[in-house]
């Protein structure tokens, strides 16, 4: 249509010229229509400009992250924090052994209580394991002492490095004021800048303080190896099979830890303070880091993995709810419902999409979370994995509400796709004697599959980009979901990419590493949404049915 109407003005132009005389208005040799067209064209181009501006702004603010994080990691290594963390990991893993022992003891004592034994008898029977508990805790004592001294040292070094950086920045700021200042003022600035003391931290000697502790660690490890062997050998026997299994697991864990000690020691030996931090190491620490720890006294980590997993995980749960419901509703409205019902349901579902997300989030906090928890505490539902729920606000609470947001998107687009299936296909199937259900499931649905897939993808895009519901209802615990819990993993609290941006953006210092990390998350979200959108468009175009 646009092409043939566009021909018309030039055709009428010569006529007008003859009848009315030439146009008066001319600017840079162009007539008025040309300028008007340019105006509209420029307006239309704003969409492109906005998209480019988004890309530009996000990447500009995020750009400093990789070098900044590189410096962050470099200080972590140079100041020896990384070295200390090897020992810290060892003690943390060891603490897990202690927890396992306590859990076994608890299970055992409950088992004995269930047998109806008196308290004194239970204590007597558990005496052996209690002794081991104390021994286990004592065996790591030397390590902990060394660790805490090393932590003190390393963090003081880091603090000095940080002060040095700050001072260098102060000096830089003073010096940058000199060009353009009056001579007296410039001289004053120069003296001020010269007065700034920048302490150069001598990393080598500071690291030596740490590495000199290695023989002590080795000695402590020899001691620990012996102790662990004895503890594992001294584990008591239980007559109950479940408890015996737990005890043998514990013995295995003790043995594994004992075996890992030489490997941990070689980690100390292999560690080098002057190994440079590469660009990719910095990027990897963001893309594959499992910790998002900010404003910590020890070391800040910006690993997006737990947030990414959280976002995708919530989206998948909500799609698992929304896809069946959305498509069933689309099938019902398009194929089954009488026209009157159709006219009511369609606007109603569209109307659902107008519920503001913050209201849904508030509903989740105020009503849904508590209701779900009470439901999960019902006795006869305890077979469901993850019930009773530990937390009121968790991935499932958020996902259930997000599903309600995704359903209108999926419904509307899927219904359109069903509507676009040529009548002939359906009629041919019915004429061959297929029932209406067979026609729906084997003819109409497969024919509309491309449109439905696109609908699902766009629903996914809507869900993964949603902020307020996940911020309010997902529980906001930054951790990769623990998939060993089976299906119960759905009831764990998680944090999301959108949530972290909304939560932390308001509180960060502009230009800081944390600020840039949040923009990195924004970039990731943006690219993800572009990818999803592109995929949806591709699918629709690629599998389009010939229209009859």
């Amino acid at each position, binding site marked *: 249509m646009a092409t043939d109407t566009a021909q018309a003005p030039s055709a009428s132009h010569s006529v007008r010229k003859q009848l009315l005389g030439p146009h008066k208005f001319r600017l840079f040799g162009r007539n008025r229509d040309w300028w008007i067209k340019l105006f509209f064209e420029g307006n*239309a181009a704003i969409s492109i400009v906005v998209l480019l501006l988004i890309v530009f702004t996000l990447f500009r603010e995020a750009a400093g992250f990789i070098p900044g994080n590189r410096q962050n990691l470099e200080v972590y290594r140079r100041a020896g924090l990384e070295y200390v963390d090897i020992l810290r990991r060892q003690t943390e893993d060891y603490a897990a052994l202690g927890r396992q022992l306590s859990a076994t003891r608890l299970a055992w004592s409950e088992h004995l209580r269930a047998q109806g034994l008196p308290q004194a008898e239970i204590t007597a029977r558990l005496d052996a394991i209690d002794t081991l508990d104390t021994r286990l805790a004592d065996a790591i004592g030397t390590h902990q002492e060394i660790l805490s001294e090393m932590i003190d040292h390393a963090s003081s070094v880091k603090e000095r490095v940080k002060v040095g950086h700050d001072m260098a920045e102060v000096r830089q700021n003073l010096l940058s004021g000199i060009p353009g200042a009056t001579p007296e003022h410039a001289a004053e600035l120069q003296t001020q800048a010269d007065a700034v003391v920048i302490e150069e931290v001598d990393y080598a000697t500071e690291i030596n303080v740490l590495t000199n502790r290695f023989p002590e660690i080795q000695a402590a490890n020899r001691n620990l190896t012996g102790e662990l062997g004895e503890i594992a050998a001294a584990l008591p026997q239980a007559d109950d099979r479940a408890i015996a299994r737990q005890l043998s697991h514990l013995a295995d864990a003790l043995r594994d830890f004992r075996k890992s000690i030489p490997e941990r020691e070689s980690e100390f030996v292999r560690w080098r303070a002057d190994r440079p931090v590469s660009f990719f190491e910095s990027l990897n620490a963001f893309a594959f880091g499992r910790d998002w720890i900010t404003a910590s006294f020890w070391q800040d980590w910006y690993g997006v993995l737990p947030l990414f997993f959280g976002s995708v995980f919530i989206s998948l749960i909500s799609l698992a709810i929304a896809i069946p419901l959305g498509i069933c509703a689309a099938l019902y409205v398009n194929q089954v419902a009488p026209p009157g019902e159709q006219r009511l349901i369609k606007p109603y579902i569209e109307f659902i999409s107008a519920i503001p997300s913050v209201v849904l989030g508030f*509903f989740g906090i105020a009503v849904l979370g508590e209701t779900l928890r009470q439901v999960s505490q019902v006795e006869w539902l305890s077979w469901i994995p993850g019930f009773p729920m530990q937390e009121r606000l968790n991935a499932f609470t958020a996902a259930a509400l997000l599903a309600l947001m995704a359903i209108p998107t999926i419904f509307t687009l899927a219904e359109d796709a069903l509507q676009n299936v040529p009548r002939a296909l359906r009629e041919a199937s019915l004429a061959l004697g297929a029932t209406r259900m067979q026609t729906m499931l084997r003819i109409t649905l497969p024919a509309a599959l491309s449109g439905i897939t696109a609908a699902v993808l766009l629903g996914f895009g809507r869900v993964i980009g949603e902020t307020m519901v996940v911020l309010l209802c997902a529980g906001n615990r930054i951790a990769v979901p623990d998939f060993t819990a089976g299906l119960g993993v759905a009831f764990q609290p998680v944090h999301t990419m959108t949530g972290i941006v909304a939560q932390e953006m308001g509180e960060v210092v502009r230009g800081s590493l944390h600020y840039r990390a949040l923009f990195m998350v924004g970039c990731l979200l943006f690219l993800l949404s572009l990818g999803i959108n592109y995929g949806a468009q591709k699918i629709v175009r690629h599998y389009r049915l010939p229209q009859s």
Partner: protein
Amino acid sequence: MSESSYFPPRRSILRKPSWAARLESSFFVLLRVATYGVLLAAAAIFIDIGWKGGRVVFQAAPPFINVPFLTQAPETLNVFTLDGQTVKMGDRDFRAYKAANPEKLRDVHVSTYVYSAGGIFPNIVGTVLLVLGSMVIALALGVCSAVYLSEYAKDGPFIRLLRLSIANLAGVPSIVFGLFGFGLFVVAFDWNVSLIAGWFTLAFMVLPIIITASEEALRAVPKGLREGSLALGATKFQTIRTNVLPYALPGILTSSVLAIARVAGETAPIMFTAAYVVRDQMPWQVEQWTDFFFQGVMALPYHIYVVASKIPQNDYTSDVQYGTAFVFLFTVAAIALAAILLRARMRKKYRW
């Protein structure tokens, strides 16, 4: 949809329904249950907020509407026991009372609850301002873009790029728009947290919706109207101005009402660009008129977020939470409903 046997025809009582027929009808029941399940879930939200929030906003005695809630600013609630009675007072009343009889409150323990007294008037005003400004910007840009797309554009690389941008812009998450607005308007342009930063952020966010809706409305105007005008010697722009836009305008406006619902309902884009948790002045209390554009405002959605998650929860906060959610949800819902109804009417009225 001319197949009229939407449910399988009722069989005669003499014949047992076949296995296939029974399967089919149970399948249809399943579809129906799923559909109505969705509708019920949404209804549950409306009923819960309508019931609990309605009790805050409405009251049994005349004037039946809780006027202070709608016309006052949020205040801190002070609760204390006086002469054996629990007294609840907003901050302003409390100060006046304290000044009037200081000795009475000397040994009384007063517990305070932020934002739990007063009303939400500044928030309503802020939201209205945000919606108005951003819609003006978005409509101006969007309608002009749509005019270009439907009246001038010829297929080519530029148009393909344009359509690609619009489609992708529509899928960008709202929080990313928030980050963009913060990075560009608040930081780079140095507008700080301000109305104008929020306007542009929101306007760019709804731009794709407005463009798509306007283009649809413009394309619905029959070709004959354009050709008639051009044949009479009108220029292209005269044709658009007199013979296309007036007929497309109702369609453009109705479709834009849905965009209003979207703008009003979003929280994430204004969190760092335009919204303040609390502000004492009303938007019109500015020294210079230019300051009007560069001031942050309180907004309803942000207020819900703040009272629902940022402040300690107790019995007294639930009133303001539900009251705000009620006002907000039903305003947005009313706008959306109006849009849907208007569009249904439009489709019947302007069918060329």
